[in-house]
């Protein structure tokens, strides 16, 4: 629950897939309108459509940008939702094997409103949700 993990295989070379993660127009074609710039540390926004969770502008910042090298590439950016205020992190890893590119997505940080590691680890948020929800699920 604290992490959303998804993978997909795309029948394309890494060099052909990478622009869909780093070219603003191409990102908009599959994800959402954005002001992405492929620069380490750059701040940008994602204009989240109403039907998709946040339903408003998401504030982002590039934390890691490793262009394709030896069949691998990585892109990490923060994904800050304003309402309810949630600082999440989106990690994208691309790996090419025999002409196919595997995209591994990890969207984490759903535990708390603020990234306060002390309180975050004092008691697992997952633990609370699971414990509290068991009676509801079993009914």
């Amino acid at each position, binding site marked *: 629950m604290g992490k959303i993990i998804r993978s997909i295989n795309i029948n394309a070379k890494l060099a052909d897939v990478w622009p869909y993660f780093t070219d603003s127009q191409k990102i908009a*074609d599959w994800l959402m309108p954005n002001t992405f710039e492929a620069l380490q540390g750059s701040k940008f926004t994602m204009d989240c459509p109403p039907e998709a969770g946040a339903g408003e502008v998401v504030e982002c910042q590039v934390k890691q940008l490793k262009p394709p090298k030896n069949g691998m590439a990585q892109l990490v950016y923060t994904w800050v939702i304003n309402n*309810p205020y949630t600082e999440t992190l989106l990690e994208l890893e691309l790996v090419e094997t025999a002409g196919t590119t595997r995209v591994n997505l990890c969207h984490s940080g759903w535990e708390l409103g603020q990234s306060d590691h002390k309180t975050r680890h004092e008691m697992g948020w997952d633990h609370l*949700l699971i414990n509290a929800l068991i009676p509801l699920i079993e009914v």
Partner: protein
Amino acid sequence: MTYRIQGVFSVIADPKRRKMLDYLSAADRTAGDIASKFEISRPAVANHLRILEQNGLINIVKIGRTRVHKLNAAPLKEIKDWINSYERFWDQKLTGLKLLIESDLAKK
């Protein structure tokens, strides 16, 4: 919907309140039970319980002369549903990405 989630988020951002809810997930408790489990003053416990009640996370039921605190997990379920909506979002987007790239390449 999101306004209420925001409130629940702030309420459970406090680790003591999370522990209180966790304690109540095992059984219904009186304020005295709860106070004896936490190393904070009774007024502080009462204050946390009031916040939990105001945000619909607990219900206080009178049984005879005692007031029993019961967990109400429904608002937590809303948070879980909200996170689940993001799971569906990524499933849809990644499938769309695959179709887009593969059809773009087929056109070349």
